[in-house]
């Protein structure tokens, strides 16, 4: 642990600053008037930047690098501001910012479809619904309980210890977790799914997934990872039944939501 702290001082400093900024910003026991939010935001953002800087130098090009810094700061900063906002409406809007930035990170991780889907689902549906509910339920503005938070210290301490140990494990030297290069199986057609004897000099052969009686579920090694084609093939080939189940789940959930939500006859809203 000590060696990790010595090797990555920026990460540790970033975590500490981030935590201080968050605690500064959280609505407290007493009136938060004495603490100006701007200072807290500055401390937190500085901490985030330091945290990212501690992650080491990457090999990617400048555009990706810039995009990562912007989106990562936006996602985490939006998160910090969301959980510390004294008004739920602003909280929902900061959540939208965090979501958009997460989608940017999806994009960086070569998941354009997911990015689009998340924006559509969250921005188009979830956040709008949240705002509707807030406006229906909290017409008088920020309530007293929004000015108070509880058990900030234990929760934050646990959270940042968790985060620190995560960083320590991921950045440990020598690395504990390694990327395993996996190549498409090149076993003869007669013996699908046989594993070649483990030999450190040879790449590990991925075992063929069990044959599913679905004509869409053919291995297509040419489709690049992250492409819509590859994702679609995986979803509607290997996970066809799961997709159908998920559709059923949505239907059941919508029926449940209708059943749970109060009726108009009962004088709810």
């Amino acid at each position, binding site marked *: 642990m000590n060696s990790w702290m010595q090797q990555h001082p920026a990460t540790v400093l970033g975590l500490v600053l981030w935590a201080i900024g968050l605690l500064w910003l959280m609505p407290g026991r007493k009136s938060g008037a004495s603490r100006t939010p701007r200072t807290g935001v500055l401390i937190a953002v500085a901490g985030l930047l330091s945290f990212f800087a501690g992650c080491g130098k990457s090999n990617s090009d400048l555009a990706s690098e810039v995009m990562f810094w912007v989106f990562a700061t936006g*996602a985490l900063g939006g998160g910090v501001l969301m959980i510390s906002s004294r008004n739920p409406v602003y909280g929902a809007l900061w959540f939208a910012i965090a979501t958009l930035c997460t989608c940017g990170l999806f994009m960086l991780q070569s998941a354009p479809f997911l990015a689009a889907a998340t924006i559509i*689902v969250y921005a188009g549906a979830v956040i709008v619904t949240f705002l509707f509910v807030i*406006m229906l339920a909290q017409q008088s503005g920020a309530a007293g309980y929004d000015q108070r938070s509880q058990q900030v210290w234990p929760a934050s301490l646990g959270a940042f210890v968790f985060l620190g140990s995560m960083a320590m494990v*991921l950045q440990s030297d020598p690395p504990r977790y*390694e990327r395993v290069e996996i190549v498409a199986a090149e076993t003869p057609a007669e013996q699908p799914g046989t594993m070649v004897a483990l030999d450190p000099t040879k790449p590990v052969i991925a075992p063929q997934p069990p044959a599913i009686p679905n004509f869409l579920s053919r291995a297509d090694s040419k489709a690049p990872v*992250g492409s819509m084609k590859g994702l679609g093939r995986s979803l509607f080939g290997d996970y066809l039944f799961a997709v159908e189940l998920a559709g059923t789940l949505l239907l*059941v959930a919508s029926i449940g939501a209708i059943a749970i939500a109060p009726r108009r006859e*009962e004088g709810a809203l």
Partner: protein
Amino acid sequence: MSVPFGPEEIRILLVAAGLFVLGAIGFVTRRNLILLVLSAELMLHGVSLSLVTFGKIHQNSEGQAFTIFVLTVAACEAGLALSLVLSLYRKSHSLDIRLWSELRESDVNPPDQGESLPAAVSTSAYDGIPKLTPAGVAPVGTAGHP
């Protein structure tokens, strides 16, 4: 051939962990039911981001496929949670989660209900927020409205 994670993967995973952790903090510390639900969604974002990154590390689309399911479940959860919040609101006319503290022995004192909360802030900043007219009432400014 095995190579260590690149710093790109590591920092994305750390961002994902950060989102998860922030969601958890929000879930534990805040008292507004809606913010609790939003925090849970933030945690799900963190999980989704990790899954996508793992998929990229392993060079397959299973991480993304799984994220789709996470998205589906999150949408279901949001819908159900909001209707639950609404029915809770109808009972207590408040979104404070501390009002729902029945999960204790009957002879244990309830948590500090007597705590004095600051009055609802209704400054001009909040007046500007649009509000929905309750259903069944003619909207303001129409002929039916007094």
